[in-house]
């Protein structure tokens, strides 16, 4: 039992490896696998061809059937290893398949057509990344326009969110004014209402203002986040009032106290809100779809979804497009991860 306690408190780093260290690293290894493997598998799968995706059991790496161009045929033909009636194995290219029979030619001697039962052939496969999963959908719509809209929405919304939430957080943390408690309680209580529930009335408001088919209709409504106000207020409470007062004595206006003193001191909390805001806006799908119906205003998430028709999901495109949307946010995280994780840790809801 002492061991369990030892584990729960913390290893003192005596340089001696005991069972709790083994457990720790095993746990971390397993955790890393479970956390990362699904994403890794997604990326690997996104480079497989449609046929490659359907194999069971699945290949670890993206393979594709090899093709050869044969004289006299316009398109490259798929290659097969064919077991001939005499037991030898030849590599032949298939012209077409008719019923249970494949019509093959020898790439070296394309004149003669050889008929082979489909049970006697196996595909010749090679490692190949199916970039067409990415390029095909991208050619079908104006990717750059969607990207630009997504960036405009994400950046503008994040700046506005940071500005107005920090201002409100500052007021609620550092002033005693009539109605402050009421405002705070109302804001916090809306934390509990899922946004998907009030989509219809918000859409009504947007229509009333006339922001349909306007990026403002996507940017503004989500800017006053209760989470942001709460987070920043809690963090700003920890800034000592004396600091503010001494700045005021030096003649700083309230506005300067806010932006030159309080804001820099709240950097970790702002960073947390920034990454969450980027994440929310970048991933947002349903709301832009409702507000925007013109394709030159579509964000990336809406645009990428538009190749899903009435028919079934085409997995090879879906997977590739999923990787596309995941890339920027992963990049931002990879660059800022230290800042973000420590930021959340220090904000830690005091």
């Amino acid at each position: 039992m002492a061991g369990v306690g030892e584990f729960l408190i913390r290893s003192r780093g005596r340089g001696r490896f005991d069972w709790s260290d083994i457990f720790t690293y095993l746990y971390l290894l397993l955790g890393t696998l479970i956390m990362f493997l699904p994403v890794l598998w997604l990326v690997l799968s996104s480079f497989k061809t449609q046929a490659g995706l359907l194999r069971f059991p699945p290949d670890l790496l993206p393979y594709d059937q090899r093709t050869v161009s044969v004289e006299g045929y316009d398109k490259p033909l798929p290659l097969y290893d064919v077991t001939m009636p005499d037991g030898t194995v030849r590599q032949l290219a298939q012209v077409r398949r008719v019923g249970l029979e494949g019509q093959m030619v020898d790439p070296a001697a394309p004149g003669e057509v050889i008929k082979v039962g489909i049970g006697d052939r196996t595909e010749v496969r090679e490692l190949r990344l199916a970039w067409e999963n990415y390029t095909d959908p991208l050619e079908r719509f104006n990717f750059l326009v969607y990207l630009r809209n997504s960036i405009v929405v994400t950046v503008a919304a994040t700046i506005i969110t940071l500005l107005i939430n920090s201002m409100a957080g500052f007021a609620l943390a550092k002033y005693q004014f009539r109605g402050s408690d009421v405002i705070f309680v109302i804001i916090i209580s809306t934390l509990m209402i899922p946004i998907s529930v009030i989509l219809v009335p918000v859409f009504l408001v947007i229509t009333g203002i006339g922001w349909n088919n306007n990026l403002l209709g996507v940017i503004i409504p989500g800017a006053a986040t209760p989470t942001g106000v709460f987070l920043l207020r809690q963090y700003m409470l920890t800034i000592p009032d004396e600091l503010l007062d001494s700045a005021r004595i030096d003649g700083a206006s309230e506005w300067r106290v806010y932006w030159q003193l309080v804001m820099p001191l709240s950097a970790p909390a702002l960073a947390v809100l920034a990454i969450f805001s980027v994440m929310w806006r970048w991933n947002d799908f349903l709301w832009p779809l409702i507000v925007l119906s013109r394709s030159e205003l579509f964000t990336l998430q809406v645009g990428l979804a538009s190749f899903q028709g009435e028919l079934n999901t085409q997995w090879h495109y879906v997977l590739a497009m999923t990787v596309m949307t995941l890339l920027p946010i992963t990049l931002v995280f990879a660059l800022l991860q230290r800042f973000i994780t420590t930021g959340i840790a220090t904000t830690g809801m005091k």
Partner: protein
Amino acid sequence: MHRFRYAALTTMLLIFAILLAACTTVPAAPAESDADAVATEAPAAAAPAGAVTELRITWYDDGSEGAVLRDLLDRFEADNPDIRVIIDTVPYSSGILETLPLQLEAGEGPDMARVTQLGGLSKYMLDLRPYLSNPAYWDENFGPFLAWMQTEADGNAIPGFMTQLTVTGPFINRTLFEQAGVAVPSDASDQVTWQEWVAAAREVAAATDTFALAMDRSGHRLAGPAVSMGATYFDADGNPALVGDQGFKDMAQLMIDWHADGTMIPEVWIGSAGSYQAANEPFVNGQLAMYMSGSWQIGQFNTNIADAFDWEAVPNPCGPGGCTGMPGGAALVAINTTKHPEAVARVMEYLTSEAIMNEFYARTLFIPGHLGLAAKGIEFQAELPQTLKSLQVFSSEVGKLAPLAYDLQAYKYNTILFNATRDRLTQVFTGELTLDEAIQKMQEDIDAGIAAAQQ
């Protein structure tokens, strides 16, 4: 403060420049686009003439039809420089089914839209009759389908045309039948019952280690076989009445049995609650002997299966009520909030002219929703014998549909009915409801839905 004066001035200038840039991109003429000024690109700026009317089509794509339409419209725009048509492609289920009705209800719809909920959205559709130069052509060639887009049962509005007519019916994988050594029932007789088909398909599945049957998860798909089994769906007054509909119950029982004994792929109906689900994947991969779907799949199979195996459409199986599928389809309709009805009518007239329609259907491999062309026959741009044969089978199915099938398709609240049958039946497969309870619940859902719609 002096420290930042320079920065402040620069920022001011920057903001000013951005505002200025945004303002100059505002198209000169139409006042309604003012609100878009900040964010829109400047497509209209390319045409300073000011007389260009911009029309919007909200569209969804199942295959290449969007590209074909774009191509046809490019030609139109070349001949009519005063009109520009922009196609906004959205996802089908979240875009067309869920979001578009809300936008229409708010009066924020496009000028035209491609929709499948014809009766339900009819109140937002524009009657083009006053704007058409030759309405008789429309009545003559689109008459029976226009009936699906009316707000009143006996209305004569012309809101648009069918981009495709669809007919539901089964596909089979003939190669699997051959491998299993099972005769394809429809080769010997043109009156094969559902039970005979399923028995054959089960034999195939057992011999080839595949699945016997799948049906799209849709009340609309279920309706064809149900009507064949003798379902009546409506009471004498024309209101939906499922309680006591023995034919419907028989079909539902068949579905339950097929799920219980593993005939059907369970993923399609049980594994995807809440929405429509197709079974293209297993069929395309040759893991499915028989697939109850519809004519719209042909284009997809033409490219995705090609000649990997022999697939074909077969006539709808029979029951005591006949051998029918369901008609259906998507229509391109004008929306009544458009500010340019004349321009919309011109685009519509161009698209429905016989030569253009012919080209559209031929390139998209859609069953024509144009009676004149249907009678003449379309020369589809396909080479595969599988594709051509399937197109021919479905085209001939059009004439064999039961009158009740047409009534169901024309019924204004049919989506309520189809969704209720689909979702409640699924609950029987999972054991949450008994069949009798489910039918009772279907009826309640339908009644409540209609009551809300009429309130």
